């Protein structure tokens, strides 16, 4: 207490100075915190419901309801985007708007910007969900939103940045607390990732092609994708942990120097690890190796955060037994520790060879999403709502019930997924003594279907907990009243600051300088990206060209866009890794040069269905036609949704020219003026397919979407089969 008296805003102030300082009175904006909190709960429930639907669709194909909008390939991106950007996004803003004001001893910079930020973000979410369901997608995971929304995201993110920095600059606290370091790094890195990965050429009001192609697109995308996990799901939540955990436990943070080391090491190393999503692919080996080693080096910085969280609870473990808020936080931090240890293990090539493309990845992700993000959000919600409504939690018992239900939900979710992933990988790789594959792909799927059922039960249990929380918090809100403007007092920052002895730590220098903090963070995160991405783009040998690889025909291009729009990549990879089993099952392993015209790349990250990189020519046109109409006709037991509507839906041939022109701008070598005659070629090829189908007694319109899709599928992977002599096909 004595110490409290001598320090104002964290600085020890001699008596004579203290007298000169007038204590200012100001108000924290709790209303914006409330709005973000409500949005978090709402979108959390919606995002998880979408996930549950997608989970059920994996064993009940009928749950796709035979319409494009409700089919798995579109529901799954809605689930991931809703959970990441709507649930966790609003959770971040809720926590940041609450803690930043208090850590800066200042109201948010501008109430108006806060509101614009809030409503802008909700607008992004709603338009995002609607456009994704309508089939407007870039086809790049977690960056699926199309170009107008990308621009909107950039604007809203900048508004958030101005509001945050405005608050930091007008703070009444001389130094920035570790939570704010994480907020700053989050802001600058997400801005960088989003902008670089979203470079695209629009060809219509809601559709564009990725600026990058093939290997390069893959590298940029997973540099983004991995760091979306790092800087959207991890660093801001570490910031929240650093504020809410010591607050809830009423214990000092364990180690200041650990904070410093793990913060800088984490942001510097994290950015390099993206290529571990592309092990054994056509990405150059050196980039893959960088992904591996930086992932391994990431263990310690990640665990630094976990240790600082858990050790802060030293001496408060008796409270953990009582307080649901702390319980949630402890499990959250533990899940963080597990996921960040598992991640580097999955980055080792020998482990990745088994885990990648299977449900193992899904399990890993959900330890992080349900455990770390979910539980930390719940903990923060249970803590914030009673605080800003100046009341007590309606029912501690219900919150404890939520805790147990949630924990059981996580276990029921992830254990079947680990099991499914490992089983399926083993079956994929199994050979008979005669040297042939032991299992057909479909057998490996039907074998794990029961695990999919269990997983959806786990998800349901977890979601039930969320509803319990919503009820509990609703009752809490009812019992109190919002303190929209919470009074606080602090002295303004004076020019006559006296530096205390403990402030001589070298790192204190940057803690007083938010702009330098921003710049240094940007430098730390830019290095890894630049050193990996630039050489891949500039050095020719990284993507050896293959003469026989030609651009897609107009019909194939249309078909490809249908493939992208329907999220086929959420279940089918187009990347044959150099493994004996994959070469036996799918054909020659994929080469970098095969993807040079793929804007965007479609390598995928999960094989719920078989790889399609060389499906071209494997089956007759009529097989594809029947299979798309009802997959179970051609492969009994298949869990693929039916795409019967594709047989009638007509192609948008009016946009063929625009598509070709956009591709030309991206450097795809179509002849000058080809956009004007592209539709003639399109019709010619479509009629060929139509006639082909006719031979097998199938009548179809030559401009039905199915025709274009068949053209695309039949083209996949066939170019490389042509010898050098057959190449000149001008």
């Amino acid at each position: 207490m004595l110490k409290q008296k001598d320090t104002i805003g964290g600085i020890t102030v001699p008596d004579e100075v203290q007298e000169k300082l007038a204590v200012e009175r100001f108000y924290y904006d709790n209303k914006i915190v409330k709005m973000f909190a409500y949005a978090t709960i709402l979108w959390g429930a919606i995002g998880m419901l979408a996930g549950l639907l997608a989970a059920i669709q994996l064993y009940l194909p009928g749950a796709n309801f035979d319409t494009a909008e409700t089919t798995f390939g579109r529901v799954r991106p809605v689930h991931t985007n809703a959970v990441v950007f709507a649930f966790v996004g609003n959770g971040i803003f809720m926590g940041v708007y609450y803690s930043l004001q208090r850590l800066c001893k200042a109201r948010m910079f501008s109430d108006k910007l806060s509101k614009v930020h809030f409503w802008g973000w909700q607008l992004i979410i709603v338009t995002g969900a609607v456009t994704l369901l309508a089939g407007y997608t870039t086809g790049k995971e977690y960056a699926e939103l199309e170009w107008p929304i990308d621009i909107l995201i950039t604007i809203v993110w900048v508004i958030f940045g101005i509001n945050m920095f405005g608050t930091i600059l007008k703070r009444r606290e001389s130094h920035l607390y570790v939570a704010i370091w994480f907020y700053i790094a989050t802001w600058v890195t997400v801005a960088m990732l989003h902008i670089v990965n979203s470079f695209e050429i629009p060809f219509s009001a809601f559709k564009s092609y990725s600026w990058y192609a093939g290997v390069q697109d893959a590298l940029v995308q997973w540099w983004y994708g991995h760091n979306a996990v790092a800087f959207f799901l991890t660093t801001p939540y570490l910031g929240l942990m650093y504020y809410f955990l010591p607050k809830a436990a009423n214990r000092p943070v364990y180690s200041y120097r650990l904070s410093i080391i793990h913060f800088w090491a984490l942001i510097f190393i994290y950015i390099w690890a993206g290529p571990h999503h592309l092990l054994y692919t056509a990405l150059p080996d050196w980039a893959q190796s960088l992904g591996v080693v930086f992932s391994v080096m990431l263990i310690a910085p990640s665990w630094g955060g976990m240790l600082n969280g858990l050790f802060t609870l030293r001496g408060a473990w008796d409270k953990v037994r009582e307080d649901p808020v702390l319980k949630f936080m402890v499990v959250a931090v533990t899940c963080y520790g597990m996921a960040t240890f598992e991640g580097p293990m999955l980055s080792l090539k020998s482990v990745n060879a088994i885990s990648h493309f299977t449900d193992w990845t899904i399990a890993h992700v959900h330890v992080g999403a349900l455990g770390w993000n979910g539980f930390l959000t719940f903990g923060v919600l249970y803590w914030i709502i009673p605080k800003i409504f100046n009341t007590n939690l309606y029912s501690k018992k219900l919150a404890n019930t939520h805790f147990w239900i949630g924990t059981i939900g996580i276990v029921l979710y992830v254990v079947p997924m680990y099991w499914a992933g490992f089983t399926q990988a083993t079956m994929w790789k199994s050979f008979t003594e005669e040297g042939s594959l032991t299992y057909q792909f479909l057998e490996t799927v039907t074998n794990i279907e029961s695990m999919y059922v269990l997983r959806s039960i786990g998800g349901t249990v977890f979601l039930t907990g969320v509803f319990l929380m919503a009820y509990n918090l609703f009752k809490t809100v009812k019992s109190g009243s919002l303190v929209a403007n919470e009074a606080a007092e602090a002295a303004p920052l004076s020019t006559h600051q006296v530096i205390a002895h403990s402030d001589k730590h070298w790192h204190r220098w940057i803690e007083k300088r938010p702009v330098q903090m921003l710049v240094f963070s940007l430098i730390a995160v830019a290095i890894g990206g630049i050193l990996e991405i630039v050489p891949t783009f500039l050095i020719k040998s990284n993507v050896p060209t293959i003469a026989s690889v030609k651009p897609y025909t107009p019909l194939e291009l249309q078909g490809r866009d249908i493939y992208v729009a329907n999220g086929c990549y959420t279940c089918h990879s187009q990347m044959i890794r150099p493994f004996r089993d994959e070469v036996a099952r799918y054909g020659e392993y994929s080469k970098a040069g095969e993807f040079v015209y793929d804007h965007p790349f479609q390598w995928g990250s999960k094989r719920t269905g078989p790889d399609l990189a060389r499906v071209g020519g494997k089956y007759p046109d009529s097989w594809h036609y029947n299979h798309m109409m009802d997959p179970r006709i051609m492969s009994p037991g298949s869990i693929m949704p039916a795409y019967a509507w594709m047989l009638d839906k007509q192609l948008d041939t009016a946009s063929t020219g625009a598509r070709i022109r956009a591709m030309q701008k991206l450097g795809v070598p179509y002849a000058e003026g080809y956009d004007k005659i592209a539709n003639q070629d399109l019709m010619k090829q479509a009629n060929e397919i139509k006639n082909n189908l006719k031979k097998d007694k199938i009548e179809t319109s030559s401009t039905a979407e199915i025709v274009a899709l068949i053209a695309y599928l039949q083209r996949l992977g066939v170019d490389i089969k042509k010898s050098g002599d057959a190449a000149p096909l001008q």
Partner: protein
Amino acid sequence: MSMKNKSIKLIAFFAAVLPLGALAQDGPKMNEAKSPQAIALCIIAALLALAIYVAAKMLVQQAKANLKKIKKSTATKLVSALLFVFLSSSLFAQDAVVTDDAAAGKTEIVKAAIPLSSTSFYVLVSVIGVEIIILISIIGQVKSLMKANEEAPVAENAIAVETTEEQLFSIKKIWGKLNSFKPIQEEADIEMSHDYDGIRELDNRLPPWWLYGFYICIIFAVVYLWRFHVSHTGPSSVQELEIAMHQAEEQRAGFLAKSKNNVDENTVTQLTEASDIDAGKKVFTSMCAACHAADGGGGVGPNLTDDYWLHGGSIKDIFKTITYGWPDKGMKSWKDDYSPLQIQQIASYVMSLHGTKPATPKEPQGDLYKEAGATAADSSAVKDSALKTTTALVK
């Protein structure tokens, strides 16, 4: 006390010498380091070495506390010094192995994975064994020293109040040491003099195991990059495939040589045993029926019951068709899905369908096939018309 020191010295000596021995053993057969067994064992050995190092540090601390009367605890210092040598030499040993591999050249990699010779294996295992013994003995020493240290102050001054359970040796204590925890009562010493919205910060030391773990990860990174991109002693992804294919081919050849699977399109004969026909039928109804209908009447694929064949109707022709497929006509190759025997069974089943009456027969396709004349491979069949023209559309 002197006995104890002697034993420590002895242990340390062994610890320092053994890995050198291992290095010498490995010397002439450097390429054994490529074997995954060797790598795994080396990693285990290195981890144990680290554990020994940490434990030894604890021992030194305890010993220091214990030997206050003896001015210089040279013995314990010696232990840590020797252990350090041991640790670094074992790391160096790995490095040396890697570099020598570089000289050996990378062509060797493509050969099947090198098995670990039994001598190397036993040497590595015994190193690990000795390490475990050392670790256990050090922990035992730490334990007894800790006990002694705790009992001592109680005996010396009765004022020490904190003599309850906490004083006893426990996992908690070791945990505390591993993390170099400061007792909560002494927290005030390391508190930073600032607070943020009531949040105070301590400045605890970095947990030693965490810090050393970080160093190890960095060393791992350097060695990994060195191994795969400088010395090229680790196989690239594509080389891994070559190795796997090579091994698989050998295994397969070995197996086929002594089994009735040893058939190909030149030696295949029609099977007539009911069990073989049934086996063929089973595969046919599950896989082939999608295109050829369950009764062979055809659908997407041709009718298999009539007299007309696109690619010949002899057992050899059918076997060949199933094995290699006619990809441009939609018939995929099944040789990676089914064994030669299975394909023989399927082909025999297809032969048995000849002349049956399917429910909805497809119109005849191809040429009339007569049993006697073995038709030559239909060269005109190799038409990749569809694909060629589609690509030709693009200028």
